[in-house]
């Protein structure tokens, strides 16, 4: 275990009493509680952490936060593994294991680094210009490209962790817990408004965390304590707001147990929690990101952002080097430079400004050599910076003679970009502030305020005043007041001198190919120049052509410089070349958290009937029908599907079968105008349906196509019960309500779903009457209880509505009982029915039985393109009244008499079963293509008929009775021939039904 030789003697927020061991690339190291993986690595002198995406150049830790493009690691192994995690965001825990990604065999000796040598051949978009010949080789080229691309690896096993989502509502949401966010939350919280404050770090304070003592720290502690004492204020730490959507809806992801490591996690906690926040007012205090500057080799490990150096120094007590050169165009790089100098490091500052102002004098006073009007033009080193060339800059940008400075650390600062991401996501427009060379929030699109550095505000006192005012205003707009006075926190930062916009050191084309703008994706100044030259001149073309900003950091560092360089090349201002916009998520958002608990059985909870367990005990195989689980068939020992279905079908025709029909949609209709409603939505007439009777109906859409069918019964003068197909129950209720409420409000009708309120057992077969007679008080004689009627009575002692309707063509009773009695009813009928040979049957037998009778199934024999006339159901289409869809039936195409029509098909070979979905042709060809005239919609072996039967939609089918047609089986199997017939195969005169 190596020692932490770059750890400072004192200071920082780490807990030196708690040493933590961790492994990086197979080597053991030690850090402290409070470290990130990045700070712990730097403390151990480890700079080389990863390889870049395209050229596989060695890369180190560039930043100290979410914007990190380089230091991505594979965290942990096995099922707990996660790719592409930023070392700068990983809180160190004992036993942590991480490896570099995108490097083989290892990060030091990466074979793919050959791309770096070939880099000259691989400019932006090179792949659009080659790999085209020979045509067939692209898939081979692509394989190699794919292997080289990608970053980390997906875990190899299912995720063992649990995730949650939680809704939260607030009057004021404050995003960012730095000084501005704290001041905002205090101002809003003091009014009694419900406030949520969200920050990504484990501790509130943001940039204030960079001082461990002093007035800033004292104020931070008091602010945090005051917020904690407020009942209506919720502080969420380790939480990143990733998305800002319409109507002030925001998404935040809280890391609940990641900092404990998976071995330390508590099983009752989710790993991550996705917060779905609905806010009245939103205040964004999201800070700013420092920018890099383009120079040759600015991507070498040891070249860092100046502010990051300051953070590692102050927060983690780590000095990332001992001999540093800072390269800046603004004042902010001087603070970390002076901190390093104070810590004993040798420090020089190259400042592109010829007159850096007072800050340079203060730096000189502590022994720092300041080079005004100078730039770092290149960095030297192999896998780690060991020196830089600096040169003077002329007024026209001429670069003077370079000289070599030895160093082991470079800190660069190209100015700051306010973190306007969430503001942009919310729909707000950005404005360009030329003085600071940055985009700042412009006109908001929602009730959004932006404060602090995110708003381009510089200086602690100005920032606090702004934040306090925003918090008070937001609370006021939410209906609260009493924010008190703004906090005063004196800043020791003197007035800043202006920044001088500077994006990249002027250089020759060869050198510009090593000036990196987007570090992760290896986009250089040369690439930007190439895109511009080739006409990819809009910002979006630049991004897409070069992949600038498309990495996992989504351009937090590179977008603004890239845009500015493009503007410079075109000789226009930045806003003229375009603004950049941002899309969610702000930082990568875990899929598991997005899914929350809606996985596994909760993805779409299954609906089961009250008789489900009895089916299960009987060995039923279930099928999914919509959300329902329905018995498909009930195989007995040794039976396959065909044997079981044949047995079930024979039982229904010869004895009695029982089907669970609970899942059929049931809609209770009440009111004096129900018949009028039925007349309008069904194709047939309903006014004369008597109480106690039932009738079949077909529904059409306004386009004239069949959407549903079912039986509706009149329960009382003003009371009806409608049934729908299983899958359409909710849709049809909605359909009725839509027409009732929006088009026909004059109709007095209430519609309500009672699908779940009743369990339904259907008994069907010649012995159905005998069976039912044993357990009911109803008179079942054909005269008293004829086909298409219903009666109320008791069955097996349970109050029941019994409907004598049939989907099998047999004597059939559909027994409806309150759902809680469903299992009792089923059990009683099974018991009593045993001597009658009762056989439970499933949906497949139901399908066969109804096909034997030529009954359609909507959705199987129809597909949204079929009219009642196509189905040969002219008898149910009223000529005397209007109904939904009627007008469409007379359009020229719909009125054609040679449309596809439902017919029966009987195969020449009675044992051959046509494939459902088989396409029907009139004239066979040796090979495709051939003209198809229709398709097989339903096809079964009918055990009762001893042969196969089928229904098909065939063009001009009714004129083809007796014709022979062909059904090729291109997926395998012989071409089958069949004769066109009527659709009813069994009991055409209905004597079984009516008996």
């Amino acid at each position, binding site marked *: 275990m190596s020692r932490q030789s770059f750890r400072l003697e004192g200071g920082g927020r780490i807990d030196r009493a708690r040493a933590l061991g961790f492994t990086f690339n197979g080597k053991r190291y030690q850090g402290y509680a409070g470290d990130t993986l990045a700070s712990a690595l730097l403390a151990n002198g480890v700079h080389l952490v990863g390889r870049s995406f395209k050229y596989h150049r060695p890369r180190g830790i560039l930043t100290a936060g979410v914007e990190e493009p380089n230091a991505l690691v594979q965290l942990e192994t096995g099922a707990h593994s996660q790719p592409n995690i930023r070392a700068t965001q990983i809180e160190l825990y004992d036993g942590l294991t991480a490896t570099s990604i995108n490097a083989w065999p290892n990060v030091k000796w990466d074979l793919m680094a050959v791309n770096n040598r070939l880099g000259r051949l691989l400019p932006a978009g090179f792949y659009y210009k080659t790999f085209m010949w020979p045509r067939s080789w692209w898939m081979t080229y692509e394989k190699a490209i794919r292997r080289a691309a990608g970053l980390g690896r997906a875990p190899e096993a299912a995720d063992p962790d649990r995730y949650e989502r939680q809704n939260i509502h607030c009057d004021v949401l404050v995003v960012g817990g730095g000084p501005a966010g704290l001041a905002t939350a205090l101002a809003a919280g003091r009014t009694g408004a419900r406030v949520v404050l969200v920050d990504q770090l484990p501790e509130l304070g943001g940039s204030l965390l960079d001082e461990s003592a002093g007035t800033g720290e004292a104020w931070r502690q008091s602010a945090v304590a005051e917020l904690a004492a407020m009942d209506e204020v919720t502080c969420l730490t380790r939480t990143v707001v990733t998305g800002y*959507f319409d109507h002030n809806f925001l998404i935040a992801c809280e890391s609940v147990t990641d900092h404990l490591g998976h071995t330390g996690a508590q099983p009752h906690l989710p790993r991550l929690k996705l917060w*779905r926040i609905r806010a009245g007012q939103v205040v964004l205090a999201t800070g700013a990101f420092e920018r890099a500057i383009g120079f040759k080799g600015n991507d070498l490990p040891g070249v860092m952002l100046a502010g990051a150096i300051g953070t590692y120094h102050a927060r983690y007590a780590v000095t990332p080097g001992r001999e540093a050169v800072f390269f800046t165009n603004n004042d902010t790089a001087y603070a970390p430079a002076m901190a390093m100098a104070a810590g004993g490091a040798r420090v020089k500052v190259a400042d592109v400004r010829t007159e850096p102002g007072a800050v340079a004098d203060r730096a000189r006073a502590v022994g720092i050599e300041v080079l005004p009007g100078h730039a770092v033009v290149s960095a030297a080193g192999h896998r780690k910076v060991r020196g830089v060339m600096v040169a003077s800059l002329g007024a026209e940008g001429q670069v003077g003679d370079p000289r070599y400075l030895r160093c082991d650390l470079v800190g660069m600062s190209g100015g700051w970009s306010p973190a306007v991401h969430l503001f*942009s996501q919310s*729909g707000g427009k950005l404005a360009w502030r030329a003085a600071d060379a940055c985009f700042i929030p412009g006109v908001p699109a929602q009730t959004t305020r932006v404060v602090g550095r995110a708003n381009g505000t510089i200086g602690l006192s100005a920032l606090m005043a702004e934040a306090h005012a925003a918090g008070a205003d937001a609370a006021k707009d939410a209906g609260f007041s009493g924010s008190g006075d703004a906090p005063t926190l004196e800043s020791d930062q003197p007035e800043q001198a202006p920044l001088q916009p500077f994006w990249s050191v002027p250089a020759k084309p060869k050198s510009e190919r090593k000036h990196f703008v987007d570090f992760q994706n290896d986009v250089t100044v040369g690439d930007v120049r190439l895109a511009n030259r080739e006409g990819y001149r809009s910002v*979006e073309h630049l991004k897409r052509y070069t992949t600038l900003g498309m990495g996992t950091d989504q351009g937090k560092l590179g977008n603004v410089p890239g845009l500015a360089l493009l503007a410079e090349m075109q000789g226009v201002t930045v806003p003229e070349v375009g603004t950049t916009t941002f899309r969610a998520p702000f930082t990568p958002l875990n899929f598991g958290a997005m899914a929350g608990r809606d996985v596994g059985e909760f993805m779409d909870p299954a609906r089961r009937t009250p008789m489900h367990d009895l089916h299960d005990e009987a060995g039923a195989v279930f099928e999914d029908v919509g959300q329902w689980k329905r018995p498909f068939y009930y195989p007995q020992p040794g039976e396959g599907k065909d044997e079981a279905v044949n047995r079930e079908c024979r039982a229904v025709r010869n004895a009695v079968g029982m089907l669970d029909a609970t899942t059929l949609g049931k809609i209770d209709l009440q009111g004096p105008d129900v018949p009028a409603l039925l007349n309008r939505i069904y194709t047939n007439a309903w006014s004369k349906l008597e109480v106690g009777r039932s009738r079949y109906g077909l529904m059409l859409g306004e386009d004239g196509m069949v959407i549903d069918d079912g039986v509706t019964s009149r329960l009382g003068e003003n009371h009806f019960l409608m049934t729908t197909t299983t899958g359409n129950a909710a849709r049809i209720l*909605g359909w009725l309500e*839509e027409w009732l*409420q929006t*088009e026909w409000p004059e109709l007095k009708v209430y519609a309500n779903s009672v699908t779940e309120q009743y369990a339904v057992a259907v008994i069907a077969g010649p012995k159905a009457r005998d069976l039912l007679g044993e357990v009911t008080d109803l008179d079942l004689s054909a005269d008293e209880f004829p086909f298409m009627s219903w009666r109320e009575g008791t069955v097996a002692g349970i109050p029941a509505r019994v409907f004598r309707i049939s989907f099998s063509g047999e004597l059939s009773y559909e027994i409806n009982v309150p759902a809680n009695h469903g299992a009792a009813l089923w059990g009683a009928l099974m018991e009593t029915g045993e001597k009658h040979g009762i056989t439970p049957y499933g949906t497949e037998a139901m399908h066969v039985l109804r096909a034997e009778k030529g009954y359609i199934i909507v959705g199987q024999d129809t597909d949204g393109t079929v009219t009642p006339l196509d189905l040969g159901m002219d008898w149910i289409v009223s000529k005397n009244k*209007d109904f939904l869809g009627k007008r469409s039936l007379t359009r020229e195409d719909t009125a054609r008499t040679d449309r596809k029509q439902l017919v029966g098909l009987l195969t020449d070979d009675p044992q051959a079963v046509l494939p459902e979905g088989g396409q029907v042709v009139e004239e066979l060809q040796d090979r495709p293509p051939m003209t198809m005239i229709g398709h097989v919609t339903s096809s079964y072996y009918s055990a009762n008929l001893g042969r196969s039967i089928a229904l098909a939609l065939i063009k001009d089918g009714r004129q083809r009775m007796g014709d022979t047609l062909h059904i090729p089986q291109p997926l395998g199997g012989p071409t089958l021939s069949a004769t066109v017939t009527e659709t009813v195969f069994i009991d055409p005169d209905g004597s079984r039904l009516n008996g």
Partner: protein
Amino acid sequence: MFLIECPWCGPRDETEFSYGGEAHIARPVGGGHDMTNAEWGHYVFHRTNPKGLHRERWVHSHGCRRWFNVVRDTVSHEFLLIYKPGEKPDLPALPKSPEPPDGPGR
């Protein structure tokens, strides 16, 4: 995710509602049997689909199950008016809705 003010239940999350298409498309009196095919086709299929203010229907399907009408800006997604069936207040006078920021897409 929208926050929609049901005229009967108050503000609720979008997930409780279903969208019901353009509002105020009256079904032709008598069922359109005196219309040409083209006129009927317009009723069934053609919609204004405006960029900007749109009168449309929503139903509180996981709440009171009642339908209502709204005026929504199809660019900003702002709900400007919400009213009950049978009502039809005038469109609000509004500045032209701004173009959405041209997102970067894929």
